[in-house]
């Protein structure tokens, strides 16, 4: 027995075993998230149930489970949609009440811009007071036109009117600052020019609003009539339809194509319907930009601290205090960082910046409120100890012989540091950056206080100068998960989306880390130790 332990074999098995368990747990978690989340895009078949009280229900079967406290009885959860009509997206039906069920080939799933899905049969197009019969293939081109119309309306609303608003805001601020100055001929002239510009802009604005009104009016002229499960006929404007499809008739190939399209919409489009439908693109964008800004801040800060601790200071009481403080930062709960960010960055520094540079806009705060800059800085503070420790490791791995060679040639300490030590320590620094990014991408609590919102009107990066707007609030995948899962009005319907968003978050962090890991591996090959 003792002999077996001496060979070390049991320990090899033990380490292998624990590694396998860890890997299985990770993959199991990801598989669970994938199963629960990726199913959301698959176009499920529509089932029609005939109940024993002669009512008919139409919808997607969500799940079947045994009724609690009643053994051997089951009930089915059906997604019946039509939230504006029925009040709820889902409905439970006892299996004992079902007489028969079928999958009608003409049943349609209609994704709407508001109020979620509708399930029913297409009766036709409303024409005066009659119904002109129509089938799905005739409707599709109309739908395409309607989508183009929607895009142009959004373009006018967001881009064109947004531009006008942007210009108006700048003129308003200029006017306000001019009015605060002592009045002279010059200022009066300038006020006059600004007023003329404002008038011109207002004219363009009214024109755009008129165009919009016309466009909106034109959306109402095409309506279709949908027959629901219970025979009711509902009128639906074509403009309200995002997508319409007949899942019972679609082949696997068609369904797969549909799946890919829906997935692409998820990652590239904006959210609708209080974040429960549509895409998560602004959240992905906000997360990535925030992590990048945070990395840009934390890397110099951490590297300089580590260089100071290792190269420039001797082992005295001051350096020990610094080191202990840095290590303790790692243990502070992240919400405390959020509160610090609020008090110091937002109120103190942000308020100061507002008073100095943006006093015209007051009392509306520009930097004195949450924004992507303050959120990134708060997270940078959170992850500084990781970078410091990793950089110190990297610095200590630089062999003394190289430094001596550099000093021997007459280099100063700084030159040696800059040309020899830091390049050699770069893989260690990158490791620190990778760990910092991974930690920061997952922290949500400090962000909620320092600048993340449920729905941001614009991205932090856009085409108006100065192109990156550090004072804007942003969306974040982690917060989005919380919001969709626990704060949305329709949690049942949105739950699969929680899983999908989690997947996207994991994937985004993975991509960010992969980029850094590849960079580090390339550098490692370059700085291998001496060949002797």
């Amino acid at each position, binding site marked *: 027995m003792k002999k077996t332990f001496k060979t070390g074999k049991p320990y090899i098995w033990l380490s292998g075993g624990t590694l396998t368990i860890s890997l299985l747990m990770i993959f199991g978690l990801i598989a669970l998230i994938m199963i629960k989340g990726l199913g959301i895009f698959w176009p499920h078949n529509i089932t029609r149930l005939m109940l024993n009280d002669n009512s008919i229900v139409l919808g997607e079967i969500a799940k079947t489970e045994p009724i609690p406290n009643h053994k051997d009885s089951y009930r089915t959860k059906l997604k019946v949609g039509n939230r504006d009509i029925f009040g709820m997206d889902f409905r439970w039906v006892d299996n004992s009440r079902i007489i028969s069920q079928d999958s009608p080939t003409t049943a349609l799933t209609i994704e709407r811009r508001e109020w979620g899905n509708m399930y029913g049969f297409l009766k036709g197009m409303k024409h005066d007071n009659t119904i002109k019969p129509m089938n799905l293939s005739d409707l599709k081109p109309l739908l395409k036109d309607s989508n183009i119309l929607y895009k142009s309306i959004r373009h006018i609303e967001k881009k064109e009117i947004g531009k006008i608003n942007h210009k108006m805001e700048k003129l308003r601020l200029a006017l306000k600052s001019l009015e605060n100055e002592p009045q002279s001929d010059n200022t009066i002239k300038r006020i006059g020019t600004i007023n003329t510009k404002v008038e011109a802009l207002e004219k363009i604005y009214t024109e755009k609003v008129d165009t919009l009104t016309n466009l909106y009016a034109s959306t109402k002229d095409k309506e279709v009539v949908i027959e629901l499960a219970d025979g009711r006929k509902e009128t639906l404007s074509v403009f309200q339809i995002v997508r319409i499809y007949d899942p019972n008739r679609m082949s696997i190939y068609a369904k797969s194509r549909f799946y890919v399209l829906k997935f692409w919409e998820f990652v590239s489009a904006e959210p609708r319907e209080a974040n429960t439908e549509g895409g998560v693109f602004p959240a992905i964008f906000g997360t990535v930009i925030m992590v990048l800004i945070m990395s840009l801040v934390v890397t110099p800060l951490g590297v300089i601290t580590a260089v100071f601790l290792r190269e420039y200071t001797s082992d005295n009481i001051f350096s020990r205090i610094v080191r202990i403080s840095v290590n303790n930062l790692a243990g502070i709960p992240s919400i405390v960082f959020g509160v610090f960010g609020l008090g110091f960055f937002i109120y103190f520094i942000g308020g100061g910046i507002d008073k100095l540079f943006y006093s015209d806009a007051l009392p509306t705060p520009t930097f004195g409120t949450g924004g992507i800059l303050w959120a990134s800085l708060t997270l940078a503070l959170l992850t500084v100890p990781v970078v410091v420790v990793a950089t110190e490791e990297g610095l200590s791995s630089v062999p003394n012989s190289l430094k001596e060679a550099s000093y021997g*040639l007459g280099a100063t300490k700084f030159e040696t540091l800059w040309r020899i030590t830091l390049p050699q320590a770069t893989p260690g620094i990158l490791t620190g950056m990778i760990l910092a990014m991974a930690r920061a991408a997952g922290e949500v609590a400090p962000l909620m206080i320092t600048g993340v919102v449920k729905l941001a009107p614009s991205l932090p990066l856009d085409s108006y100068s100065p192109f990156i707007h550090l004072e804007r609030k942003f969306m974040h995948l982690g917060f989005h998960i919380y919001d969709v899962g626990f704060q949305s009005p329709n949690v049942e319907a949105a739950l699969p989306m929680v899983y999908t968003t989690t997947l996207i978050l994991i994937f985004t962090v993975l991509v960010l880390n992969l980029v850094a890991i590849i960079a580090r591996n390339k550098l490692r090959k370059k700085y291998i130790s001496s060949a002797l």
Partner: protein
Amino acid sequence: MPEVSLTKEKAFLNLPSKVSQDLNTKHMNNIIIKNLSLMYGKKQVLKNINKEIEEKKITAIIGPSGCGKSSLLRCINRMNELIPDSRVDGEILFHNKNIYAGDTDVTEIRRKIGMVFQKANPFPKSIFDNVAYGLRINGIKDKKKISTTVETTLQDCGLLKEVKDRLHTPAMELSGGQQQRLCIARALAIEPEIILMDEPCSALDPSSTFKIEELMMKLKKRYTVIIVTHNMQQAARASDITGFLYMGELIEYGDTNALFTNPKEKLTENYISGNFG
């Protein structure tokens, strides 16, 4: 005496361009060690060394392990200061100025007194960048000048033929002997006056050792060389003057032939004949 051919932003020791025949300045380029003592913490490593090292000669320092040979060498270009807790008493005069005085610029000293270490330590850069490193940190930016200096130095070290077509490949890919010659080239590129060599061949095979000894003989014409070695045959072969160091004290010092054939001290004789150390 090498021309002062490098310019630098900082002021440096002004050197005459020709060897002066004046008796007063005859020994100006020698290194004069006066009452040098070195302590690492509480341990005294060097005790009261007094010596004058002649220019344009190869001086060898021999002695058993741990006697302070490398420490003595490192005192001459103030590399001992990199070790915490080290303290130096006494003076080392270079061009009649104490290099340990408060107002001397240590990087200037190290530029004039180059060093080659026991284990070759090329930078993880290309061969070209290794040799050019010293030139670049001394403010030389002219690409053509750097290029010519690198090639000339590599030629002097006998390395150019072997690496001519791969100057921009990593230096780490060279063999041990080539790396050591590269390190010598790197030290020579900035045209020092004195070259300190700390057991340069101890990690090399005999043929590389032979090449480096040949190089040393060539260098003697232009530079002063001080070499620390374990290898008595090498000291006997290659050096003009030998010093025997034992337990931090300089026991005997003089012409190599005289020291090896007719040592004055008993300790020296014991060491040379292999009775200890």
